[in-house]
């Protein structure tokens, strides 16, 4: 099943993808964009898992220090979100 959506690309990017499709280096523009999106989501997921592991290791080394750091950082990031 597929869903049709409209995306806007910079002219040079759109032309490059179109050219790849015309030269049969990718089945279609849609296939190329879908592959790129899947790749990006996959990299993001791997990075998220890696960060979780790093944080768990840091907390295991110094639980009290880590929790204090987490509390301080959480506060300043919340202030930044609020624009304070």
């Amino acid at each position, binding site marked *: 099943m597929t869903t049709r959506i409209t995306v806007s690309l910079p002219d040079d990017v759109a032309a490059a993808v179109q050219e790849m499709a015309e030269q049969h280096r990718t089945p279609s523009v849609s296939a190329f964009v879908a592959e790129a999106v899947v790749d990006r989501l996959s990299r993001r997921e791997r990075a998220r898992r890696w960060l979780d592991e790093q944080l768990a290791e840091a907390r295991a080394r110094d639980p009290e220090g880590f929790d204090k750091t987490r509390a301080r950082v959480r506060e300043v990031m919340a*202030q930044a*979100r609020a624009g304070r």
Partner: protein
Amino acid sequence: MGGVVLDASVLISFAEADPAAMVAVDEADQNAQALLVPAVALTTAYAQAGPKGDGPYLDRMLSLGVIVGDGGLGHAEAPMIGAVWSEAPGVPLHTAEAAWHARRRGWVVLAIDGAPLRGAYPDVRLAVPGEE
């Protein structure tokens, strides 16, 4: 929701697996809060990580969805960042670059070491997790 400009000290600390820097990125990712990574600051962090250093940490960070690139420092940005740098020519270029982004977007700069930015650009809002 306000985003955050990452100072070079955060990027360097992240590359060294400093918990404060990693938690800051985690908090942003959990809350879908944009983190702007300025080009010169990122270059500085890669340089400090060295050719066989902790560059992969930065590579991973850049793959997170909340990371926003600044489009690089090109001809269009050079005069504006140069003008900001001329206000405090003694600071590293990446400090002026962070100040320019923060002023332009009205965002906070997150730093592990806030002294250079605070001294040079007191009008820029600064968040330093290690400070009370």
